[in-house]
């Protein structure tokens, strides 16, 4: 687990004892995030691996200041999510299934909007948009409204808009959900490229193969708690398992205690 003192840390993302509770009419009091600690650094892809409902999206929503933590702290590029939410959002690019594109804007207008509203230097916005159009190969349909684009085209515009203001930290929350193989591979390629440019990337997924291929460090999250954190090699050594899927099952069943069996998508059931 992370434990470096803040003074000497070069972390771009820092999460300390993060907790998020909420009330659900059906389930009552829910601890969606329960004492999470981790840090991310420049030029790395940090994978948050967990089943549906493990607390990944809640953590990322706290980091993007959409919601606030019940306790603990989180910061991005040194900006606290509670104290400087605008500065945090300016340092972030957020990509997820719940952050769709504005359907009535064209691709170009979309990029201009996100660059400007996220305070990319105004005189350089046009040049930045041209660069993104070229980089993501959206020139042919840059003046077509998003609502008329195919899902693959939308994905490219969406990735471009996430990095429009050139933020140092990027969050990709389940980015390949609903994408076909080719588009998913394209996504992975872009994430690697961005990492190589020195961006910090927080990559959340429940797809093991993606995390295995892409992430420099992995945090396994279950019921809002971080069960393990390290490189894939670290986790393999600690568990004695080779495949990430087996590593994941090992940690989760261990956390649930003896007799726990991992069901579909990581859901735990107690046998016996």
């Amino acid at each position, binding site marked *: 687990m992370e434990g470096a003192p803040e003074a000497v840390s070069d972390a771009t993302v820092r999460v300390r004892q993060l907790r998020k509770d909420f009330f659900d009419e059906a389930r009552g009091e829910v601890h969606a995030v329960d004492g999470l600690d981790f840090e991310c650094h420049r030029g790395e892809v940090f994978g948050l691996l967990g089943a549906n409902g493990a607390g990944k999206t809640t953590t990322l929503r706290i980091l993007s200041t959409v919601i606030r933590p019940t306790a603990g702290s989180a910061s991005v590029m040194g900006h606290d999510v509670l104290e400087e939410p*605008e500065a945090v959002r300016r340092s972030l690019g957020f990509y997820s*299934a719940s952050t769709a594109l504005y*359907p009535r804007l064209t691709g170009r207008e979309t990029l201009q909007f996100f660059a400007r509203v*996220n*305070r990319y230097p105004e005189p350089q916005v046009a040049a930045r948009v041209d660069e993104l159009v070229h980089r993501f190969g959206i020139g042919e349909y840059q003046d077509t409204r998003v609502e008329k684009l195919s899902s693959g085209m939308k994905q490219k515009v969406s990735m471009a808009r996430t990095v429009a203001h050139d933020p140092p930290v990027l969050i990709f929350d389940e980015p390949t959900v609903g994408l076909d193989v080719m588009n998913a591979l394209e996504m992975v390629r872009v994430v690697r490229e961005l990492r190589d440019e020195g961006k910090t990337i927080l990559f959340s997924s429940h797809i093991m193969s993606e995390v295995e291929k892409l992430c420099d460090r992995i945090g396994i999250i279950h019921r809002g708690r971080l069960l393990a954190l390290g490189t894939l090699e670290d986790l393999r050594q600690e568990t004695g398992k080779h495949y990430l899927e087996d590593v994941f099952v090992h940690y989760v069943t261990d956390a649930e205690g003896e007799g726990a069996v991992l069901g579909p998508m990581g859901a735990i059931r107690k046998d016996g």
Partner: protein
Amino acid sequence: MTPHLSTWAPTLDLRSTKILYQRELRSALRERSVVVNGILMPIFLYPLLLWGMFSALNFVQGLNDGVRSRVAFTGPPPEVHRALVDTILARQDVEAVDVGRADGGGIPGLVPMEAAIVGLQDGRIDAVVTFEMIPDGGSTLPDNVGITVRFDRTETRSAGARDRVEDAVASYRSGWIDQEVESLGMERAARTPFVIDSENVASGESVGTLLLGQMLSLFIVIMVALGCFIPSVDTTAGERERSTWETTLTVSAPRSSVIAAKYLSVATLGVVAGVLNVLALFLSMGAVVRPLMAESGDISFSLPLLSIPVMIAGACALALFFAAAMMLLASFARTFKDGQAMIQPVYWLVFLPVLLGNQTDRTLTPTIASIPVANVSMMIRDSINGVFLWPLIAQTLLVTLATVAVLLLVAQYILRFEDFLLGSFDGSFWRFVRARLSS
């Protein structure tokens, strides 16, 4: 358990607000229903509506004028008044109808009473004229006769027949009285002890202006509400439905800028709808209604110049109010359709001015000036009629702006709740209020 409050600092960044506002407007103006309701409807509605209305009225009038009234007689008239039947039937627009001949010495259209009533009920006869001798008691002239015209009030054609018969009878009656007066050796002037007449002192212009005031004050309210209706749902529930709500929340602008931009864009579209309505109505009045009115009467209208800024101020105040109220309610919806349903209470407010607007002798009072929507409607009507009660106009605008401020404070408070912000709260504004009050 206390619901969780989201990050919210009521700070406004003008640059971000402007960028977000431009984005909201651009998106809204690319939505067909927004353009149709807010821009095209005002431009084309009035000319088409008014032209259609007058054309239809003229057409119906023409149809009625061309229709001959089918009249039957019961109880044959005394021989001395036989000419009355001839007078009625001499009209080009009246004809006798036979639905079962009665013995009447060759009077056309003379039928038994039962057959006449049945004919009136089943629509074969438009009016039945019945003659009844008045017993000579010394108080009436000799040969005096009572005439009853039976008709069906639910049928326009039957009511028209009644009018035509009454015209003919009145004409005959006048001639007969003159004749009797002369035979009694009296001066003709002596038969009319006094004359009753009425005179409308209202000029054609003031009548026209009154009508314009009633119509315009109501239409501006309706059209501003309509102008805000779709954009307010589109920018709240529509964003949730399209999954762009969270996209907007993750931009680096302050939340207050996001909300201000949304609110101002909806209000702008409401103002545009209101101003376009005023312009379209004037143009329609001049180009369509005035020529049509000139053909049929002496009604005209004029407008005090000062009423134009008052109307524009009224349209702006209404837009600010409707935008705030509609967005507040619609923001609880997860789908566009739900949003439309949740807005209905505000839309019903539109009809409040109708109740007050019908009282033509009423002007803005301190009480009316305290009722949102109705106050602005009355203020507009007064201004068209040349009545400018400045202290009450100021009260009207202040009350409206104060109401808007309260609505925005409520919106700001609600936005702090994460279940609302993320759309996980399932229910309307009213349910939310109940739930929070009880928690």
